[in-house]
């Protein structure tokens, strides 16, 4: 079985993980237009090479980031999202309470 290294739980069978999509920057939902939101929701980079992705270790519900080559399936690095994300994001509906 292929092994992935979870930053919290160590090396585990790949079947313990759930793929969560590419990491990309979210546009501000309050100000962005429909096409840029569509781009954020539906589009990935689609290069064959090293991609930065969200993964979850399912038994511990722990989300982290992996750098993986999507052609060779080599996993180069996994790390806590705290390395990239430091701020909390709060969503507000227009005119509504947070």
């Amino acid at each position: 079985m292929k092994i992935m290294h979870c930053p919290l739980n160590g090396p585990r069978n790949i079947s313990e993980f759930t793929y969560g999509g590419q990491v990309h920057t979210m546009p501000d939902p309050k100000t962005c237009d429909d096409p840029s939101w569509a781009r954020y929701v539906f589009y990935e980079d689609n290069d064959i090479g090293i991609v930065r992705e969200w993964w979850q270790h399912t038994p511990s519900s722990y989300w982290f980031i992996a750098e993986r080559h999507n052609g060779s399936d080599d996993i180069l690095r996994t790390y806590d999202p705290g390395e990239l994300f430091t701020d909390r994001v709060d969503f507000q509906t227009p005119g509504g309470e947070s």
Partner: protein
Amino acid sequence: MPVALLKYGLGDDFPFEDHADLPGPTALRDHYDVVIIGGGGHGVATAYYLAKYHGITNVAVLEKAYLGGGNTARNTAVIRSNYLTPEGVAFYSASVKLYEQLSNEFDFNIMYSQRGQLTLAHTDATVRAFRQRAEVNKHFGGRTELIDRQAIAELVPCLNLDPAELPVLAGLWHRDGATARHDAVAWGYARGATQRGVELHQLTEVTDIASDSGRVTGVVTNRGTVHCGCVVQAVAGHSAPLAKKAGIDLPLVAYPLQAMVTLPVKPFLNPLVSSSALHCYVQQTSRGEIVIGGGSDPYPLYQSRASLPLKESLIASAVDMFPFLSEMRLLRQWAGITDMTTDYSPIMGLSPLENYYLDAGWGTWGFKATPICGQTMAQLVASGGQVPELIQPFALDRFDRFQQVNEMGATAASH
């Protein structure tokens, strides 16, 4: 043995079919009216309809490997039209109608075999979804109905009606469901197209796409640059990276899809059988092999080795459905790279480049659409960009408009 055969056996003049083979390789020309990238079923079908019905023959099909060696060679050949949305059902029904006539059209046997497709429901919610699919399908002239456990047992006596403690509640019985010989489809189209003057260039990979002020001007290949009036791209799993070379982003993610096949045995299974809950489908080919297919791999990858857990779960589910399969030997296993959209419908029609046409996003379900894709893409090219009504719902810009055509429930694991 007919006496006539003996005559050929003794003489030298064996009854060769004229043009049984494809024309040999030729030099790439400098210019074509139409360049089609991808020599899979979709590419050669487009060339065929262009040549036969629109008289457009200055066409080159560029294929990086060999004819029909991509997903056309790897798919499990389920042909059906029992989708969910009116847009989807109308489109796939038109394809099934073309398939029914395809052997006559080619004068070449594609071994079209209409045995019906049965999808099993294991939950009440699935039964309700099936009811909707049956009604939409009937509305568009398809033959689909819901059947109960007893009828299922009569259709498929060897099916385990209580697999993995998930009792089968009912089934969606689609009489129009069929299968065909996938190589024959690719070869039938390629032969018909090349006989009419289309050039098929195998071992010819498009490495870049040249454009100028919003129009494509030509393609760069490993055999040199070719200028052209317009381009159709039909490269399945590699759709997004190729389109990117033309500066076009496509909302696709590439996942491996696996299948496997056992040694041949005597015919025992006529319909194609698929389970909605086990994510597995099982069918017997006309050669007697049992084909096992299922859902996509769990994460994106451009590599057909694919993942081990899915192989395990596919086999486990197939054995749950047909317990005696555990006694059989697997002959081979393989995967293809599938270009998945989020709504499980294709991307067809215009692109941001004026004369660059898209036939992409075919994911795990595009073999059944081969004839209708060829026909509608040919109409699109011949008319200089008038999008045929049947494929308008599948436009690339539907994602920007948030008007997706959701076929997920009717596609996943049933192909």
